[in-house]
């Protein structure tokens, strides 16, 4: 593309959780194949706004730079996605950057996604194999099952699905589709299956699976194409069976 072109960024800034927010615009010299992170790095090197005002460098998070860690998730032109895989050449300008809205803000584009990890703990999204002696090899997993379960394992706890879900907000305790889908993953695992009941029980709680409103935004928003709505419907079936069976055996 032509020389002398610029990239325009419009960033929602906020100095801290209780500070007021403001917009700041930056213009950077165009280079081909830039992404939002590399633009933010330019801003960091030279934190001066388009109208020449010196400002503080913009704060953001990133880690893997290859869309597998989820750390750099932010709202880019209104949609939650990863900054590292958001290519400038494919974005409308000015590129509007805002922090995720469903998580507590730390500073600028950095939010605290701890709640997602707490939710994974709530639903026991792990396989308990720790003990005092070697348990030996576990049961084998059927290949067909492994194939679809692998898709679920791609979740990087990025929060795009949480950001897109209308049922996640200050008035609701919904844990969101990501943690729920992990229940399906760990229940599919032949060893994980042994503790299936604990994870299903957790889904019956307030904020559990029943709080989904079937807007199905999550499945569209997920950058890893995880079949979240299939997981939700499948676990609806499983939790129904589980709840009835548990009650009948009481």
């Amino acid at each position, binding site marked *: 593309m032509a020389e002398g072109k610029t990239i325009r960024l419009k960033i929602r800034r906020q100095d801290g959780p209780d500070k007021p927010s403001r917009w700041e615009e930056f213009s950077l010299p165009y280079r081909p194949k830039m992404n939002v992170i590399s633009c933010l790095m330019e801003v960091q090197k030279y934190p001066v706004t388009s109208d020449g005002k010196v400002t503080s460098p913009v704060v953001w998070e990133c880690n893997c730079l290859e869309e597998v860690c989820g750390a750099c998730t932010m709202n880019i032109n*209104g*949609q939650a996605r990863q900054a590292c895989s958001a290519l400038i050449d494919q974005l409308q300008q000015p590129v509007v950057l805002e922090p995720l809205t469903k998580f507590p803000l730390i500073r600028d584009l950095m939010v605290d996604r701890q709640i997602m990890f707490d939710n994974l703990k*709530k639903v*026991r999204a792990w396989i308990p194999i720790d003990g005092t002696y070697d348990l030996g090899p576990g049961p084998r997993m059927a290949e067909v099952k492994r194939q679809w379960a692998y898709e679920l394992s791609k979740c990087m706890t990025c929060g795009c699905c949480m950001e*897109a879900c*209308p*049922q*996640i*907000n200050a*008035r*609701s305790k*919904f844990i969101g589709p990501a943690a729920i889908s992990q229940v399906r993953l760990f229940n599919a695992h032949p060893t994980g299956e042994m503790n299936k009941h604990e994870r299903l*029980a*957790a*889904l*019956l*709680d*307030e904020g*559990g*699976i*029943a*709080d989904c*409103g*079937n*807007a*199905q*935004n999550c499945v*569209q*928003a997920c950058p890893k194409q995880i*079949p979240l*709505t*299939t997981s*939700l*419907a*499948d*676990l*609806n*079936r*499983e*939790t*129904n069976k589980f*709840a009835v069976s548990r009650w009948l055996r009481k």
Partner: protein
Amino acid sequence: MSSVQSPYHFLIRRIHSLLGLLPIGVFLTFHLFLNLSAQGGAALYDKVIGTMRNFPGIFVIELIVIFIPIAVHAVYGTWVVYTGQSNLLKYRYARNWFYIIQRVSGLYTVVFVITHVWALRVGEASFAALQHLVTNPWGLVFYALGIIFAVFHFANGLWAFAITWGLTVGPHSQKIWSYVCTLLFIVITVVGLSDLSAFLR
């Protein structure tokens, strides 16, 4: 996670879902089909209403089969609406539209049902009474919207119902089921609106 669990949350949501179909949805369908008798003119219609009203124990049946389920579904539904926060402006997917219309139609239905029952069940129900209501243009719009929204809510509710009960799990079956629900929406709406048209002649 606490070791003692109160699964009431899950139970209430499932009861809410079940009530939407049984008895409310079935009643709504039955109610709209029965009112096709208005097409037969005032005399026939008043006779049908008379039979219904003089049915032995009708009050208890209505209370248990209609009023209480609708009240429970509506009160809890309103709470559910409160716990949501639409983001249509950012995520303009069809299903996100349906999500919000499901809620708007539910709320409208509350207002509609209360008014409707107030006017016709507490007040006098007859061909003439309804004719009086719908010959007023605002009354007509209020009634037509009431029918369309209630039926939409039921049809789209059925689509969600199949997910809530884990019947349609994958995207393909959900899509096919959405076609069936659309068809139901069209058929029941046409029936409902032709009920209404009978009072305009």
